[in-house]
């Protein structure tokens, strides 16, 4: 079927479901110029929201940009199909770090091509946090200790429950009931000391209302750029490494254009422009070659290997595990 679809002339509109401030308009414009296909973007706040909407029956997206842990759920739920890589000549799996390629693979088939990646860690305001800060322990103990009332946890079950598991030395992705129980205890204990549970913590950090936040590398990048005293810490126990992908949906209305657009965006020259827009790390070596050297050595974007090694990819089981979600709910309502 894909080949039949491809033989058609490109036309109409292609819809890309993605995150805010995550694509470069210039690339979309050039695509439209080249193919005559106009690009429509649907903006989501989280993977969970995007998935909820797809599960409820939305079938109008051609391309979605989920993170790695959602891909198995989309694939097993028949929302997406293995990619026809012949239609993506700009994709070169060899140029991408294998661990990222692997995350786009399900049942041995490639469902997704890597877009960009990042890490989850801690963002601290060094003028307020004066004690050394290097670990998950520092986060939870600091908040329950000297920094009580100044900590922020993410409103994101995977990371928040994940870090609580890490505190006890368990796997970030654990779904073990006993382990989760301990994580829950920690979370409930920490809750009264927290300033907020939110993904929208940047204003709190920049205003000084909060001094330690659980957060993602791109948040840290933005904050650090504006306020150098704000720094990013990848915990020595580990944490999450994540990766966003392009995925083409099964029932999207304009598959041919979807392939063309993904291919267009993967063009290394274009991908450089993408980097300028979203500011997250890109692993495609062809693109890295085109980026300024100081980017490649940026400690927030490209942390040292020893920091990266203990990080785990969030997994689908963790995302959809009812108990983890329930713990998050109890944590929030506590």
């Amino acid at each position: 079927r894909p080949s039949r679809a491809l033989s058609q002339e490109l036309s109409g509109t292609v819809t890309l479901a993605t995150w805010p401030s995550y694509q470069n308009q210039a690339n979309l414009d050039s695509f439209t110029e080249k193919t005559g296909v106009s690009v429509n973007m649907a903006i989501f706040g989280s993977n969970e929201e995007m998935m909820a909407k797809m599960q409820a029956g939305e079938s109008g997206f051609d391309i979605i940009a989920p993170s790695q842990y959602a891909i198995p759920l989309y694939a097993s739920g028949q929302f997406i199909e293995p990619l026809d890589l012949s239609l993506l000549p700009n994709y070169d799996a060899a140029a991408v770090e294998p661990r990222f390629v692997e995350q786009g693979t399900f049942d041995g088939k490639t469902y997704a091509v890597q877009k960009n990646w990042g890490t989850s860690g801690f963002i601290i305001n060094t003028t307020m946090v004066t004690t050394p800060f290097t670990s998950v322990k520092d986060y939870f103990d600091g908040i329950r200790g000297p920094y009580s009332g100044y900590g922020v946890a993410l409103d994101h079950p995977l990371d928040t429950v994940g870090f609580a598991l890490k505190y006890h030395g368990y796997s970030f992705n654990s779904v073990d009931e006993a382990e989760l129980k301990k994580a829950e205890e920690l979370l409930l204990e920490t809750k009264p000391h927290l300033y907020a549970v939110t993904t929208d913590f940047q204003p709190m950090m920049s205003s000084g209302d909060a001094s330690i936040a659980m957060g993602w590398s791109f948040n840290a990048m933005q904050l650090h750029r504006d306020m150098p005293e704000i720094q990013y810490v990848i915990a020595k126990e580990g944490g999450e490494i994540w990766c966003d992908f392009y995925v083409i949906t099964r029932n999207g209305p304009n598959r041919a254009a979807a392939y063309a657009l993904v291919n267009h965006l993967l063009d290394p020259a274009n991908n450089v422009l993408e980097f300028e827009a979203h500011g997250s790390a890109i692993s495609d070596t062809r693109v890295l070659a085109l980026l300024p050297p100081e980017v490649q050595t940026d400690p927030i974007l490209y942390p040292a290997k020893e920091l990266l090694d203990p990080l785990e990819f969030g997994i689908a089981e963790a995302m959809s595990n009812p108990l983890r979600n329930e713990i998050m709910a109890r944590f929030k309502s506590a």
Partner: protein
Amino acid sequence: MRAFSLFIFLFLYLPVAVIVVFSFNAAPNMSAFTGLSLRWYAKAFSNPLAIAALTNSIVIALCSAVVSTAIGSAVAIGLMGTSRTTRIVVQSLMMLGLAVPGIVIGLASLVFFSAAFSGAEQAVAMLAGWEQAAKLFSFGRPTVIAAHSLFCTALVVEVISLRLRQLNPSWLEASNDLYAGRGETLWRVVVPFIVPAMVAGGLLSFVLSFDEFIIAFFVSGTKPTLPVYMFASVKRGATPELNAIATSMLTISILVSVVAFSFLRRGQARA
């Protein structure tokens, strides 16, 4: 009491002032006001996503206003001639439509509509003898308009019923007396009489629909409305650009409200 009222007014306008002031802020974030600038307006209006969302919202709000005004007027007039039971049932359902949390209506509408769509598609396919059901319906403006029309219509029914309560029944008899039958009377007396309320209700609907977030989030399909776009942006870290958009929305809302209220007042003066 006057002083307290003044305080309340300050309270009501404080956030509005924050939005407006920071929309003209030169600084890259909202941590301080560093000078006047129109850069966020420039940025907002050169952002095709924001523009598309804005256009989408305006079109949806306009259609919701028209649809709900038409249906709401018909219902309000119709309620004059029905039994008490029907009136109570319809009015309660309308009230329910206003009170049900948006998240419930939003998700349930999405599930319900998509089930209904695929049901309809399969039915069409069966009737036409197609092997496979074709995709005939999808989410988008029409679904948002339908869903918004629920609470907008409820509002319009309220506004127009209020106006109809001022309708002097003897106008209808006078019209009958002057040889106009029932239909003619409806058209020549009742409809002209409720025009101000229709305009006011329509404009209020416009504003409410323009502002609605959670229902639109679910049923807007692939094209976000402005609140959906704004809310998603807020969740990934806000930029002052949003203030520029909000100020623009505010301006639109004020203009529309001014028109709405001047109509309302004109209606009151007449009655």
